Each structure stands twice: as C-alpha cells, then as structure tokens.
C-alpha cells in the first residue's frame, strides 16, 4: 500500500509553518541506497575503512539525507501538489547508521506571484546539526 501524501492548498500555507520527518537509516537501507545510487565508496559501505579515515563508522550518504528532504516535501510540506525546483544543502557533520535523525522544514517565503514556496531546511541528530540549506518548491495549483 502506497502512503498518501498531504494535499496542502496555497491559502493554508503561511510563513513560519513547519514540518518534520524523523528517520533512522539501517545498515540494510544504506546498502540498498549504495545499489540504487551506484555509490559504493567504502566510506559508506565499509566501517573499518571509515574508521581509518577518522569517522565513527560507515557514513550515511549525503544524498540519503536529501531523499528524506524529498519525503518531507512530497509527503508533508507542501505535499501532493508540489514540484521541487531547487535545492542547496551544506553537510556539516556525518550521520551514522542506526542514529535517530530528523529533517525540519520551515516556510521562509511564499511568493504569491509565482506560487513558489521557499523552505529553510535543517537535518539534525539530537542537538548536532548535520546539514542545513534551502529548497524551492512550486505549488501547482488547480
């Protein structure tokens, strides 16, 4: 069964509105993402190699954090009627397998002239900031 995405209308949105997605990446999901992306960099799939480079273990692909941003935009804010048109994201700290993390979005700007929603994004594990950035999303209005 396919999860159903929220359908948020333009007039229901307001600057400052927030949404979040909590997630934990398992070893199996990391492996599946390596297959999907073709990125088998040992930093992501070999814990010993990652430790030899100074990390605490295999590092979750940054693109997997982006996938969680995609989930948030497509399923929550603004949800079903949105088309993602732009993203900038800085990665600050690594995320490790099995660690609870959260992506938070807040509406920074609504452009009534264009139907564009600008979201400020932060990905955290506990109090640690993993990534921050911004997404531009077009709300396709009926």
């Amino acid at each position, binding site marked *: 069964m396919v999860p159903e995405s929220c359908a948020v209308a333009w007039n229901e949105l307001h600057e400052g509105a927030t949404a979040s997605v909590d997630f934990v990446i398992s070893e199996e999901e990391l492996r599946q993402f390596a297959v999907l992306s073709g990125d088998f960099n040992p930093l992501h799939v070999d814990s010993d190699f990652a430790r030899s480079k100074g990390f605490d273990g295999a590092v979750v692909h940054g693109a997997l954090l982006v996938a969680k941003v995609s989930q948030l935009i497509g399923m929550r804010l603004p949800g079903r009627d949105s088309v993602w*048109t*732009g993203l900038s994201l800085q990665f600050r700290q690594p995320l490790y397998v099995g660690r609870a993390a959260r992506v938070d979005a807040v509406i920074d*700007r609504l*452009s*009534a*002239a*264009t*139907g*564009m929603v*600008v979201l400020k994004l932060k990905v955290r594990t506990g109090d640690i900031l993993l990534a921050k950035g911004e997404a*531009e999303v*077009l709300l396709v209005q009926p």
Partner: protein
Amino acid sequence: MESGKNMATIYTKLTEIFRDIFDDDNLLVTPELTAADVDEWDSLNHIRLVLSVERAFSLTFSAAQVDRLKNVGEFAELIGSKL
C-alpha cells in the same frame, strides 16, 4: 537624477539575475527585452526569475502585477515603484 541612479542599480541587479538564470554571461538586459528574445525563457525560468527578483530586492509582487508586464522595462519600473 536620483531616479536614474536607482534605475541603473536595478538594471545592474537584473543583469546579474538574468545571466545567472539563463546561464548566459553575455546576455544584455535592456528595457525592450522580452521572453521571445531568450531561448531559455520558459514558464519555469520565468517563475525563477520573478522569485529571484523578489528575493534580491526584498519585495513581493502580486500575480496580476507580473502577468501584465510586457518587457523588462516594465518590470524594472514595477521594481522601482516598490523600492
């Protein structure tokens, strides 16, 4: 004179925005320029353009204000009227 200076500043910023969005470092942004003159000026890039201008000048437009624009000159005048 002040108005002319403001308009020059507007065109300087617009040129930077247009060249970034249409990925053309040689694009000349003149008052007569229209979407028909720029190959990459499609509906999505038009939305990017308006949003970038709103953010660069810290202002907002209504859909009606944007819809009635015929060329860059009118866009620059609209921007100037809101500064």
